[in-house]
């Protein structure tokens, strides 16, 4: 039923979305640096024999597109000299040789970033004047670390609550994040609503889907007394299923919302931040704080904690355990969708966006100690900051490696996570 629902939803917007893009064979892409578009960069394409096939300059939104005459392999070169000062291609590959299939508008990705830290010599900030200072770069990373932490934390809190009350490690949570992004894209780009409204509706749908998921599926599995390992592998199957349903309808490219794409940064103290990101941060913080305080301060929150502590005793003392679990799924769904909406404004929307951060979410939750709410938040902060700031020393493409390695090392010393309790024996 879930699939059918999604299918109807996306049938329409897969269509709407593709039509916005070039017809016929083309090479295209969007150049962004830390979420901000980079304009005025020259891109040249040539055939394999070296014959020029066209060139383009990225526009205000960082987009460029070079129509080509037919399918084949092309050489695409980004003119480094035309990049703004201090910006470089982070993987040091300004020339790529993508293959264009029949009728395909092939996306070509040049990852951009501050030029200093990625030369591999481990000497950030050794740049001549004109480029950002190493302090600016640090401030930049610090902020994006915090921003990213909040995105992770939204999803992590949901996973942690669900785990706490049901014992399920939900591998399909990443798809709930993706859903937030995809739905917002649907409402914003395909249907044409303002982004804010689209986001709000997506979060509401995310919550509803969380609720129905538990009602129709997970709750049913619990009633059948399906064991936890089985349920966990089922969630993996579900994740695979849903992710590729997304791919089926949305396609493999990463796309942007229609609004606020080319927002210029504003200087706040040492931080250069696009206001949209700041607003997202505030929303995320309010959501996180709201849920946390509800857990501590309200009747339902206390009931939730009671269920997490001991479902049997909670049931015996008159708490409706199923209702609490359903509530937790609803909140989890809403938080995950919100995380997806924000992630979409930050890095674009793609079918795998949630799955890509799933491991980091797990890392955050595990770091903090499974099932502890504060642990999830603390873990997210550690992971988010670590990921961004570590790029001062390690290549950007390996930044997740660092975070995951930290996870493994911490578990070596504290198998129950930073704030977790040891399980009881006997």
């Amino acid at each position, binding site marked *: 039923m879930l699939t059918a629902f999604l299918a109807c939803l996306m049938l329409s917007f897969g269509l709407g979305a593709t039509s916005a893009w070039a017809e016929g064979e083309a090479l295209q892409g969007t150049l962004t640096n830390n979420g901000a578009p980079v304009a005025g960069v020259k891109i040249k394409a040539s055939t394999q024999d070296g014959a020029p096939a066209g060139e383009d300059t990225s526009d205000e939104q960082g987009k460029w597109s070079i129509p080509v005459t037919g399918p084949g392999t092309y050489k695409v070169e980004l003119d480094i000299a035309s990049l703004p000062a201090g910006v470089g291609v982070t993987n040091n590959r300004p020339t790529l040789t993508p293959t264009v299939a029949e009728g395909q508008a092939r996306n070509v990705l040049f990852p951009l970033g501050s030029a200093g830290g990625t030369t591999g010599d481990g000497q950030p900030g050794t740049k001549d004047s004109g480029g950002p200072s190493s302090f600016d770069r640090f401030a930049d990373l610090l902020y994006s670390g915090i921003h990213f932490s909040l995105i992770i934390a939204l999803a992590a809190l949901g996973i942690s609550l669900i785990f706490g009350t049901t014992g399920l490690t939900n591998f399909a949570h990443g798809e709930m994040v993706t859903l937030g992004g995809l739905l917002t894209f649907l409402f914003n780009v395909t249907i044409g609503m303002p982004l804010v409204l689209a986001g709000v509706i997506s979060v509401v749908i995310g919550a509803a889907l969380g609720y129905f998921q538990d009602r129709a599926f997970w709750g049913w599995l619990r009633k059948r007394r399906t064991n936890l390992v089985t349920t966990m592998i089922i969630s993996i199957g579900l994740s695979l299923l849903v992710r590729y349903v997304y791919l089926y309808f949305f396609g493999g490219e990463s796309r942007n919302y229609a609004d606020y794409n080319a927002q210029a940064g504003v200087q706040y103290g040492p931080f250069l931040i696009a206001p949209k990101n700041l607003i997202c941060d505030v929303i995320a913080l309010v959501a996180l704080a709201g849920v946390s305080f509800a857990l501590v301060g309200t009747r339902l929150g206390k009931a939730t904690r009671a269920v997490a502590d001991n479902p049997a005793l909670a049931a015996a003392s008159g708490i409706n355990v199923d209702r609490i679990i359903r509530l937790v799924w609803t909140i989890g769904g809403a938080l995950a969708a919100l995380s997806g909406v924000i992630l979409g404004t930050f890095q674009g929307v793609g079918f795998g966006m949630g799955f890509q951060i799933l491991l980091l979410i797990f890392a955050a939750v595990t770091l903090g100690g499974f099932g502890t709410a504060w642990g999830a938040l603390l873990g997210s902060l550690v992971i988010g900051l670590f990921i961004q700031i570590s790029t001062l020393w390690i290549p950007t493409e390996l930044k997740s490696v660092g975070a995951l390695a930290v996870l493994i090392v911490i578990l070596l010393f504290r*198998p129950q996570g930073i704030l977790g309790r040891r399980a009881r024996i006997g």
Partner: protein
Amino acid sequence: MNWSSIFSVSLEAIIGSTTIAYALAAIGLNVHFGYTGLLNFGQSAFLGVGAYGIAITVATFSQSLWLGVAIGLAAAVILALLLGIPTLRLRADYLAIVTIAAAEIIRLFYRATDLRKWTGASDGLQSFSQDFYDLNPFAGSKGIDLGLITFTDRELWILVVGWTLVLLSCLVVYLLMSSPWGRVLKAIREDEDAVRSLGKNVFSYKMQSLVLGGVIGALGGFVFALDRAAVQPDTYGTEFTFFAYTIVILGGAARVFGPVVGSMIFWVLLVFIDSTLSEASNNKVFPEWFMTTSQAGSVRYILVGLGLILLLIYRPQGIFGDKREVMLDGR
């Protein structure tokens, strides 16, 4: 629609090299998951180190194939040790997360542009399989031609080697699992504290299990790499492991031949559906809005996901398993 080609590729999948590679991956995983109850979600990494062990040794450092095999196996053992030391004391779900993370770390390293010199980054490595095919006793022969099913001399060679490895692995697993050693493993799957209380070193047994399953997985990596004569980092992603899980569960966890049978059924079905859909979309059987060629490619994953869910709900013991012996059903 070219039905005869659809049927012939599907039939070939019964014994094809992909089936072999996945069977080996699943036999290893069955040792971990089916017998020991270890939720290893990083099985793809073991195939990866096997494959890259050969590829890097031969293609990057121009050493012999045999050294590559030795390095691949050693790498699998080392990976098992590295993975096991921090994780084998953890709860089951932590183990799952850490192993999946470790597999991703390794894949990201293969991809890393800074290591392009050695790993070829996202393009991977090629031309390392010559030594292997030089040994081909069938070289120059016509291979096998059974009408619908044909295998070239080259394919024949990899099939013979591959199936030998599969049968050997099954024999080893059979011997081990009917011994007291296997009994300890199964007991650990049930309740490791009970096993500990009886004086068995649970950690050491889990480690042995991890190494054994990992090494068998690395054999699968050899077959995979030699068959394709290329390695690419993204082959060894999480989907690979999920496929292997589906195979283990399909064939019946904790059965010696379960993974082999599972892999055969899995690939025959998948190849059949895959090729039917791609034939159909190439021939414009479906209207464009319904399914394009690239969309047809994602259907297999959707089906595997769906299959995994249905299997676990309705037949957790797999096709041939015995419900009483499988850890997956009710608590």
